[in-house]
Every structure is written in C-alpha cells, then in structure tokens.
C-alpha cells in the first residue's frame, strides 16, 4: 500500500494532464460538437437544481399551509418578515455556524495530526490507514443510532462508564451537552476525510526544499512551519471547503440523535426547514426559510468558493 501511495504522490508531479486542445479558434460547428457530450449531464443538472430553486422562490412569496384553510395565495413577502423576526430561525443560524465551524476545525486539527503520524513508514501502515478511514464509509444512520444508545446513553453508554470510572458524574450527553455530542459524532465521521486529503498533501511535499532547509539548519518544527505548511495550504483549504459544504447540510445526525432539541439547541437551518415544512406543514414559510438559508450559505461559503475558483484558474493557466 505504501508503494502505491508513494507512486501516487509522484504522479502529482510527473504526469502532465492533457492540455485542452484548443489552439486554433473553433468554428461554430466544432464548438457544438465539443459541447455535445457535456449536454446530457449539464441539462439534467440544470433542470434538477435550478427549477426547484425557482419554485422555492415562488412558493416563498405565498401563504401556503397544508393544514390551513384556502388555496395558496401571494402574501407580499410576509414569510420573509416572519423569518427575520423568528428567534428560532436566528438560533438555527447560530447553531449551523457552531456545528459547521466547530466540526470543521476539529477535523482539520485532528486530521493533520493523524496524517503526520500516518505519513511515516511503520509496520502495518496500510492496515492502520484502512481502519482509520472506515468511519467515513459506514452508514451514517446506522452509526448514529448506535452512538445514541451505546455511547451517549447516561445509564449504559460507554461515555457514561468512562466518566464514572474516572470518578466524575455521568453526563447525560443528549440533554445536557447535545451540541457537543453532535460535534463529537460528526468529527469522528469526518476526520478520516480530512486525514486522507492531508496525507496526499504531505506525500507530495517538496522533498528538495525540505532537504535544502535542513542543510540551512532548520529544525523539524522550522521545516514544518516554513516548508510543509505553505505547501499544505491548498490541501487544507480544499479540505475545509469540502468539509464545510458537507457539514452545513447536516440532517440525519440531528434527526436521529437529538431531533433538533432540546428546545432547538441543535436545530440547524436544514433541520428547521424540515420542521417547518413537514411538521408544521407551512410550505410558504419553509420556502422562505430555504431561500434565506441559501443566501446565508452563499455568504458563508463565498469566500471559500473564491478560493476554489482561484485554484481552478491556476490549474487553467498550467
């Protein structure tokens, strides 16, 4: 396994991808011939993502309760006024930021640490790496249910047993520290993902620069700070972006572990939209929530998006 990993890292530097063969200006016919293969995927994705978005926008301006009387009708943006005045909504925004930010940071720190450990050759490295990556692949619903009873349960959960063994009072995680419980579970699931990306980064660290720095008398920490870390930056940024993208959408863990509670303490935006739409059956209000969620998500992720497009641009120039 180590051999393939290393050779994989070599490929980063040696294999040159196919340059887009676009030297002479293309004719109209040639342009469409080239677009052809892309169209099915592009049209499908456009339809499936843009139409629901437009419909959400339309719904969000309507008074539309499934349980209420009457047809859906235009209500002059009342839904948006309700959203902005809704304390629970702002709570859910804060929860989303805490959950996403906390888990992303924890994953990056722990992922980097484990990646550094695993980047060195030692007996059984392949096996250790394979075991470490497993939490990312197991069915989230399955492990969430298992964690709920076998780990977090105050009377027979493992965490309770550990704190009692240490002479501490058993914490009832899901009622007293629900957010911490969620962040622990999510971090466990996503650390392997951060780790995989950062191992790839470490594997492709510039050995010549590391050696040169060493010749100049840089210590282990100095080499890490001044050579490895700058090299890792795009990898850390990409990991942060992909993690945040996934975590901002967290739904299943909340639904199964805490059901957003107690008292909305763990309701994020996604779960609040779900509650409004499928528990209160207020489709108009839920649509407005969805649109505001979209705007906030873009605001939160836009800085990272810029970064990604920057990476793409660099790649384009290559």
């Amino acid at each position, binding site marked *: 396994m180590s051999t393939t990993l290393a050779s994989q890292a070599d490929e980063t530097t040696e294999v040159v991808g196919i340059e887009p063969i676009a030297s002479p200006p293309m004719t109209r016919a040639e342009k469409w011939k080239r677009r052809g293969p892309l169209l099915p995927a592009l049209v499908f994705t456009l339809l499936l993502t843009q139409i629901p978005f437009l419909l959400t926008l339309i719904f969000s301006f309507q008074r539309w309760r499934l349980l209420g009387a009457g047809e859906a009708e235009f209500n002059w943006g009342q839904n948006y006024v309700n959203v902005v005045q809704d304390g629970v909504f702002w709570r859910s925004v804060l929860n989303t930021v805490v959950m996403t930010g906390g888990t992303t940071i924890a994953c990056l720190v722990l992922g980097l640490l484990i990646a550094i450990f695993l980047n060195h*050759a030692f007996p059984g490295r392949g096996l*250790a790496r394979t075991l470490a990556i497993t939490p990312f692949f197991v069915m*989230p619903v*399955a492990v969430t249910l298992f964690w709920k*009873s076998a780990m977090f349960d105050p009377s027979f959960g493992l965490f309770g047993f550990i704190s009692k063994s240490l002479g501490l009072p058993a914490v009832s995680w899901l009622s007293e520290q629900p957010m911490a419980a969620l962040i622990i579970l999510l971090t466990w699931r996503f650390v392997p993902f951060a780790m995989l990306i950062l191992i790839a980064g470490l594997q492709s660290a510039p050995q010549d620069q590391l050696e040169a720095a060493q010749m100049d008398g840089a210590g282990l920490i100095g080499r890490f700070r001044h050579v490895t870390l700058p090299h890792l930056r795009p990898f850390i940024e*990409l990991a942060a972006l992909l993690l945040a993208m996934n975590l901002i959408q967290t739904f299943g863990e909340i639904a199964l572990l805490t059901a957003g509670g107690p008292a909305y303490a763990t309701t994020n935006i996604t779960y609040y939209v779900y509650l409004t739409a499928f528990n209160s059956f207020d489709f108009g209000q839920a649509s407005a929530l969805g649109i505001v969620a979209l705007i906030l998500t873009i605001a939160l992720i836009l800085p990272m*998006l810029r970064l990604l497009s920057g990476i793409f641009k660099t790649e384009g120039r290559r």
Partner: protein
Amino acid sequence: MSTELTQTSVLVTGSRRKARRGGQPRSARKRWASVGMATGAWVSSLVLFFPIAYMVLKSFQTEQVAASAVPQLIFAPTFEHYIEAFDSGIWPFVINSFLVTAISTLVVIALALPAAWALSVRAIQNPQDSLFFFISTKMMPIAAGIIPVYVVASQLGLLNTTAILIIMHLGMNLPLGIWMLRSFMQEIPGEILEAAAVDGASSWRIGFSIVLPLMRPGIASTALLCAVFSWNEYFYAANLTTTNSTLPLFLQKFLSFGELYTAQVAAVATLVSIPVIIAGWIAQKSLVRGLLFGAVK
C-alpha cells in the same frame, strides 16, 4: 517508492546532525522518533475504528448484556439479532437499496463519462466554468430545494417510490462523478491520444478503444464511491418516501421496537454497513486522487 526513500534519508541525516550535537547515539534517536510516530498512528487509527469494532461486538450480545452499565467484553455470543434482522421485513428495503444504488450509479457513470470527455480530452472552451457550475450545485443547501421536489413528486405520483430516490441521487452524485472521471481522464498521457489522432482514428474510436480501457480503474472507483453515497443517503429517503424506501429508513423505523435495542441496532447497523465498508476500502485511495487532482495540482 522514491518519496519514502527520500523521507527516510531525511530522517537519517536529521538524526545524524542531532547526534553530533547532542552526543546521543544516532540509531537510538531515530528509533525513538519512529516508535513515537508509529504509536501515535496506531493509537489514533484504533480510536477511530473502535466504535465500529464495539458495534460489531455488541451485535453478538443479548440486549441485557449490551445494556449493562459496565461494558462486557467476555460473553456467550448470540446470533439472535441477526436472525431477527432478517425476519423483520428487511428484504424489501434491501432490494430497494440495491436498486437505487445500482441504477443511480450506472446512470451517473453513463452521463459523467461523456461530460468528463468534453471537459478534458476534447475540451469545450473554458471547461473550468462548467466544472465550477457542477461543484457549486453541491453547495446549494438541500433544504432550499426539497419543498418543490416534494410538491412536484407528489403531483407526478412519485412520492414513496424508488424512482424519485434514483433521480435525486443522480443529482447528488453527478458532480462528484464528473469531477473524478475528468481528473482520471486528464492523467492519460496526451501523446497516446495524439498518436491515435495522427493515425486517423476518429474521436469515437479514440474514446472507445483507447480512453475507455485506460479509464477502467478510474471508472470502478468512481462508481464505488457514488454507490457508497447513494447507499448511505438519508435526507431524500426521509423526506420523499415512507414505507417503500431504502435501508437507512428501515433502520430509523427499527427504533420504535421494544425498550432495549442497542444490540439489535448494532446487528442491523453492522449488516447494512458491510457493503459500503468493503466498497470504501477498495476506493479509498481513488477518493483522494479524484477529488484532489482535479483541484490542487
């Protein structure tokens, strides 16, 4: 291999330098450093894997043993929860999960391969823009689109069907599939394709007789990853289906049974996780390749 060799040499020279300064025997320092690293690696790997091992262990306990306040490591194993799992109406959900996973993954590959071609080998102008569009759809909050999807699906009679799950999983996995397949396609050496073009091979010919065979490992691992995500998907299953659904929903409904359920949940959780764990283990390296080499290079 070369990377590893240079690393080792860095380590050796490093310890030599320190040995000279600190007067410690060089081999001892080196050994301690690598023992420390290896210990850290094994401890963290085992900590990460522990909950899964613990889950498998609990699945063989009776509910009473599983619910004892002190974790029991030695016990008489029972298979009752596995037998119970198969007797509890799991099969329709298993079949649905396989159907949704297989069909959505196949269609993702069928759509993503030509798209990847148009973004790498015979690239359209500004392929970055299209790539960026595809990945940006992954950033749209799923909550912002679920209500219209629900409404339209209910009008088309697609609620509580596998068809709607297949469609939504396609949308979910297509950007990933395109990204990964494109980065694998870009690794095919340009000279091979140029040589074929010079010999007069048509685009179709190059695609089917050169690119496709070379892409086989890339296609396999892309498909495995899409299958993992489809198999595990819960949000659409929970919102668009009820009784005629996939395994994650079966598991959620399992909870309503009985007072003690840890061991039973562990058994079902273990069963449904086996396929994805195996697929994930096979595809783990390509996940990074596919995600990274498209972006960071």
